């Protein structure tokens, strides 16, 4: 009974002469004070299940005893209301409550814990908590692993020092010291309260002593330890738990269809090997089932378990619970494949380094034939124009000879991959188209199927910045990922990538649209790589359009123009071709005077060189000042049949527009009238400069798209026509960024703004020129009325007789002298869109895309493909998901939102993809576990059919919690299945199971037959007993205090952990 008031004095006086152990004691006390473990209010015992599910907290501090370092750790179960109350209450008690009597009235935390049966076998807890049932304790562990407290005297010294510290400080929290080797987990402890002490002792043996191998023996040991015998000894209460392990799952062997890994070159490789991501675990992710049968709180008189007899039949245990041992790291295919692919991001080599060696070898083999090497560079793997498949095969075979054996992928495999990526390549165009249709159909169906299970699937493409499901890029990413794993890693990936690039190059060169890429301008909601492919497609599309236009003039005899052309005399025939070439955008300068038919490919090659020039060669009018040789020729021959020529030109160009026929009809009329009107209205135009006006006045209308509703030209009174205009250039996001950056760099000054406007006026200029071409005699006002109607302010409308005269004026801002609109209008000449400078240079852009792709290094390619691959993987997960699994649903939701932020992030980061992949494989594991458990706990094993929902619930809770109570115990639906599983395993292990008689009924009969011979359950692999009693110690007249002993008996451990309390007053 140390008075707390003396503490201060003691410390001060002893300060100078303090020995090592006194300093240790002082330090322990100090820490206890620091942690406020002094004079605490007793806590109520924890509620049921709190030890396993509650929050445990830890606090650590280092201290040393002489040169021996300890780590002192306070571990406690967080009280629900701890946060708000504890601190204030505790401080008060520490200051005011010095009377022991008050404390003595309440039962100390330790005693309550020892008696509480709420948390007898926590599923997850610190071992001290498990063995002694404590909710709060302090441990003292040697810091350095090698150092141990192993001799009796050292243990005694340490424990007595601790005892002194505890009683000095008035701390009633038990303190444990770890003794012997660390792995032995041996603890010895003490707890000192006013008027009582508790000793915690522990014994651990490797083998179970014969006499203690059952409850009777253990009870004897417990009683003898308590050490006294009175006549009316209160009974000992026993809680028992037996654990049975099930390892053989007889009824449900794990079946996982392995992916088709037949990568042998000779054998036929199924396309499935690179079309789909694999999914699932290779091994059964569920390894063991631990069944715990618990008999809570039996009086020692009720049950007997001795060497010869036992009352403890698991089927009669009132409480069953199950713990499922999952494989720590089951080999999950999807996760593994993704992980391996991601690893490629960390490779630093270039493609040259990766596949360079291969190419060198290739060349040395066939150095003599340079032409072939060149051919290899330019030639695609798949020839398109070949109508029959047979002829393709011969070529493939020829190529096969060149291919060295060192390449990771044989030509056959490579061809298959290319056909898989570009399905239209495998057959003639017609077949390809059909197949394409089929495929889009099936693709749609597939998508619908995958849409069904999870609501997220529909939104997924919107959330993720990737590529559409089923698109070329989607296939490519899946294919490369699989190939990386199944073939020789980066080498094979490189080979496919190179082939892919060659294919793209070929498609551009020979104008084949890339299939399974969404048409139209790059969709900025998709990943960059996809945008690039869209861009390439745009280029190819434009190129095809150009070429078609060209062909229309030169070749086709069935052209509708032929009749018109026949009218033209022989001398103009040659000229006709030159005109037609003029009509073709941008190719005018390269007119091949030698003959009417120019090679389209040749013309195309000139394309890029002439891109920066304007061509206005058709300005046949006398007023044209600059006359190059081209228009000279033109003019001469045009004299006779000008109108016909125009008609030819016009209608040919506007083949595509719907209003063509209407247009050309009207044209004739317009032409006539414009000629009359033009001169009379000449003076009326004020804003346009004279020269430009003259241009627009006298030329013939060109490039009309459609008449514009009701609008008439202001000065001529003619119908206003909407011109055919150039479409704006499509841009990918990186181009946009670049463009925006350039614009932003111009700064915010007025000059900058002006420059910016000028840079962007190309489109305006183009539109103005088209407008002028389509509407001879038009003025800026007319243009504004079409282009920016709100800048045309209508004045009063005066109704005069028949005609209504519209009067109005330009808005103030349009009338500012020298503003950009006026300026551009003045420079604009009447040129139809088809003869303007191309706003979008497909040749240049296509080359840029191809260059971009070919300059990507392995790591870049992988990183660019990752969003698409992640998308594919998530869809794969969703395909396999189980909707009734809340755990998985949460996981998927998190996965989707995470994937959305990662793929959208402007800076693509490998690490965040790593996290994503881990999430995906986690989901995969959960799904695999779920599948495994479902197959094990199938309702077919059950006689009752109504139990299915109960089983579902059971499986779900196993996935969520570590230990799950079996509802209804052995009689419940889950319980009876577990019983069957065990007995089947028992039977199998006790006899050679006839594999053939696998039928359920057979089994049942056999089971009936052998039931008597073999027990349904194996020997329990672990047994635990908790013995409790309340008796006075050490003397009969002492206060009765709780005593407890926890016994663990399993194969290689026999452990007794006892807490023995004794009265320290009445000894």
């Amino acid at each position, binding site marked *: 009974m140390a008075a707390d008031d003396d503490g201060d004095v003691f410390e001060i006086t002893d300060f100078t002469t303090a020995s090592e152990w006194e300093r240790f004691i002082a330090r322990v006390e100090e820490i206890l004070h620091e942690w406020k473990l002094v004079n605490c209010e007793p806590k109520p015992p924890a509620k049921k299940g709190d030890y396993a599910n509650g929050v445990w907290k830890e606090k650590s501090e280092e201290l040393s005893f002489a040169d021996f370092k300890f780590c002192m750790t306070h571990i406690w179960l967080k009280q629900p209301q701890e946060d708000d109350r504890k601190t204030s209450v505790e401080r008060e008690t520490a200051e005011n409550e010095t009377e022991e009597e008050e404390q003595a009235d309440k039962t100390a935390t330790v005693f309550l814990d020892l008696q509480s049966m709420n948390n007898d076998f926590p599923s*997850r807890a610190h071992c001290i908590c498990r063995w002694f049932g404590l909710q709060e304790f302090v441990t003292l562990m040697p810091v350095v692993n090698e150092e141990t407290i192993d001799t009796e005297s050292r243990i005694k010294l340490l424990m007595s020092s601790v005892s002194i510290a505890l009683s000095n400080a008035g701390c009633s929290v038990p303190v444990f010291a770890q003794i012997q080797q660390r792995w032995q987990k041996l603890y010895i402890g003490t707890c000192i309260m006013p008027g009582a002490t508790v000793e915690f002792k522990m014994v651990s043996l490797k083998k179970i002593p014969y006499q203690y191998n059952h409850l009777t023996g253990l009870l004897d040991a417990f009683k003898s330890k308590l050490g006294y015998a009175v006549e009316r000894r209160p009974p000992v209460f026993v809680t028992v738990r037996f*654990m049975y392990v099930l390892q053989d799952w007889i009824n449900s062997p794990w079946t996982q269809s392995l992916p088709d890994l037949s990568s042998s070159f000779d054998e036929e490789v199924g396309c499935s090997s690179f079309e789909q991501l694999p999914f699932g675990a290779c091994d059964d992710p569920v390894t063991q089932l*631990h069944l715990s049968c618990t008999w809570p709180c039996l009086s020692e008189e009720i049950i007997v378990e001795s060497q010869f007899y036992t009352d403890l039949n698991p089927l009669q245990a009132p409480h069953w619970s199950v713990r499922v041992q999952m494989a720590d790291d089951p080999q999950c295919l999807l996760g593994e494949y993704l992980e391996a692919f991601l690893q490629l991001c960390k490779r630093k080599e270039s493609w040259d380094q990766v596949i360079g060696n291969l190419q060198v070898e290739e060349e040395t083999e066939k150095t003599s034939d340079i032409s072939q090497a060149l051919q290899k560079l330019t030639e695609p793997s798949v020839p398109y124009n070949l109508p029959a498949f047979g002829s393709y095969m011969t070529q493939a075979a020829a190529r096969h000879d060149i291919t060295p054996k060192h390449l990771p992928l044989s030509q056959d495999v490579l061809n298959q991959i290319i056909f898989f990526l570009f399905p239209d390549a495998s057959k003639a165009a017609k077949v390809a188209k059909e197949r394409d249709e089929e495929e889009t159909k099936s693709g749609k169906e597939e998508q619908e199927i995958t849409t069904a299970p999870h609501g997220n699937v529909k939104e997924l493409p919107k959330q993720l910045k990737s590529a559409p499901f089923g698109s070329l890029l989607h296939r490519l990413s899946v294919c490369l990922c699989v190939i990386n794993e199944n073939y020789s890693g980066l080498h094979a990936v490189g080979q496919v990538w190179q082939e892919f690039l060659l294919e793209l190059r070929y498609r551009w060169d020979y104008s084949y649209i890339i299939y399974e890429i969404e048409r139209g301008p790059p969709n900025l909601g998709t990943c960059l790589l996809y945008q690039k492919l869209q861009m390439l497609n745009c280029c190819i599309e434009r190129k095809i359009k150009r070429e078609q236009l060209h062909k229309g003039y030169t070749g086709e005899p069935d052209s509708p123009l032929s009749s018109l052309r026949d009218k033209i005399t022989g001398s103009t025939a040659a000229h006709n071709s030159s005109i037609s070439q003029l009509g073709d955008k941008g190719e005018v300068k390269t007119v091949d005077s030698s003959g009417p038919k120019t090679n389209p490919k040749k013309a195309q090659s000139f394309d890029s060189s002439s891109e920066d020039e304007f061509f206005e060669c058709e300005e046949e009018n006398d007023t044209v000042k600059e006359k190059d040789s081209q228009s000279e020729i033109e003019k001469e021959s045009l004299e006779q049949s000008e109108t016909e020529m125009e008609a030819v030109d016009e209608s040919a160009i506007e083949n595509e527009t719907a209003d063509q026929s209407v247009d050309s009809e009207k044209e004739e009329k317009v032409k006539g009238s414009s000629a009359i009107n033009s001169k009379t209205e000449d003076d009326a135009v004020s804003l346009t400069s004279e020269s430009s006006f003259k241009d627009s006045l006298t030329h013939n209308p060109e490039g009309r798209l459609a008449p514009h509703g009701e609008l008439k030209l202001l000065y001529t009174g003619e119908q206003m026509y909407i011109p055919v205009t150039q479409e704006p250039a499509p841009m990918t996001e990186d181009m946009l960024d670049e463009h925006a950056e350039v614009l932003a760099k111009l700064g915010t000054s007025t000059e900058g703004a002006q420059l910016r406007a000028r840079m962007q006026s190309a489109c305006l200029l183009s539109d103005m020129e088209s407008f002028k071409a389509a509407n001879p005699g038009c003025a800026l006002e007319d243009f504004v009325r079409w282009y*920016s109607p*709100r800048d045309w302010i209508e004045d009063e409308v005066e109704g005069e007789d028949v005609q209504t005269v519209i009067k109005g004026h330009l808005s103030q801002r349009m009338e*500012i002298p020298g503003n950009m609109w006026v300026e551009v209008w003045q420079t604009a000449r009447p040129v139809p869109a088809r003869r303007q400078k191309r706003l979008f240079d497909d040749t240049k852009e296509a080359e840029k895309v191809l260059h971009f792709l070919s300059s990507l290094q392995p790591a870049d390619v992988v990183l660019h493909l990752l969003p698409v691959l992640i998308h594919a993987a998530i869809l794969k997960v969703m395909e396999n998901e189980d909707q009734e699994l809340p755990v998985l649903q949460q996981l998927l939701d998190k996965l989707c939102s995470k994937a959305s932020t990662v793929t959208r992030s402007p800076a693509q980061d490998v690490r965040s993809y790593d996290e994503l992949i881990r999430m995906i494989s986690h989901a995969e594991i959960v799904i695999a576990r779920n599948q495994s458990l479902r197959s094990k706990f199938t309702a077919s094993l059950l006689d009752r059919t109504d139990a299915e929902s109960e089983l579902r619930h059971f499986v779900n809770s196993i996935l969520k919690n570590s230990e799950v109570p079996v509802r209804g115990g052995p009689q419940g639906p889950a319980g009876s299945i577990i019983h069957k599983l065990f007995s089947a395993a028992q039977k199998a292990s006790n006899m050679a199971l006839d594999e053939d008689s696998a039928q359920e009924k057979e089994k049942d009969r056999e089971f009936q037959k052998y039931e008597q011979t073999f027990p349904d359950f194996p020997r329990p692999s672990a047994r635990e007993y908790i013995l409790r009693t309340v008796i006075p110690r050490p003397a009969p007249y002492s206060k009765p205090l709780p005593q407890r002993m926890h016994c663990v008996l399993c194969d290689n451990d026999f452990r007794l952990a006892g807490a023995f309390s004794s009265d320290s007053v009445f000894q």
Partner: protein
Amino acid sequence: MSDHSVLTTLKILIIGESGVGKSSLLLRFTDDTFDPEQTATIGVDFKVKTLTVDGNGAKLAIWDTAGQERFRTLTPSYYRGAQGVILVYDVTSRQSFNKLDAWLNELETFSTKHDVVKMLVGNKIDMDKREVSKEDGLKFARKHQMLFIESSAKTKEGVQCAFEELVEKVIQTPGLWETDKQGGMTLIGSRGSSQGYCGGYCVI
């Protein structure tokens, strides 16, 4: 977060029919001037201003777009990555108000962030011939979950306030402007890895 340094750069976009005063609004906000001779924007224009809202400095990169129909095929590309959008109409023009739906549609289609903050601004309230009432504007804004204010670039009214409000809202919207700072990953890792704890019967 420090009060002085710029917390983030925000991309703000101004859209709306031609001639409703988008450029004037911007000019009023950035330079605090009004130019009656503001020319019609060609393509897009760009201005920068630093603004302090709630002690957070934000650098605004404001993109002013042309309202003409024909430019619309071009300008949506600049919608990319915008965190805030100011949709302007002219209170003296019913027609400019009626076109708002079309603008919102376009915004839906082209903006890359789905939680972009939208603000509706009814401009030119200094003028007499009002054709769109404040109630109409409010109704529209409510229907489409937008911020709403009426303003006059000429008299200054409401302009500063509009931009500030928008920026504040953007900053308050989680995940909209902080690009990748939050790690927020809790899921991975098997249960119970904390040292010293053992499960079930693994007694040793």
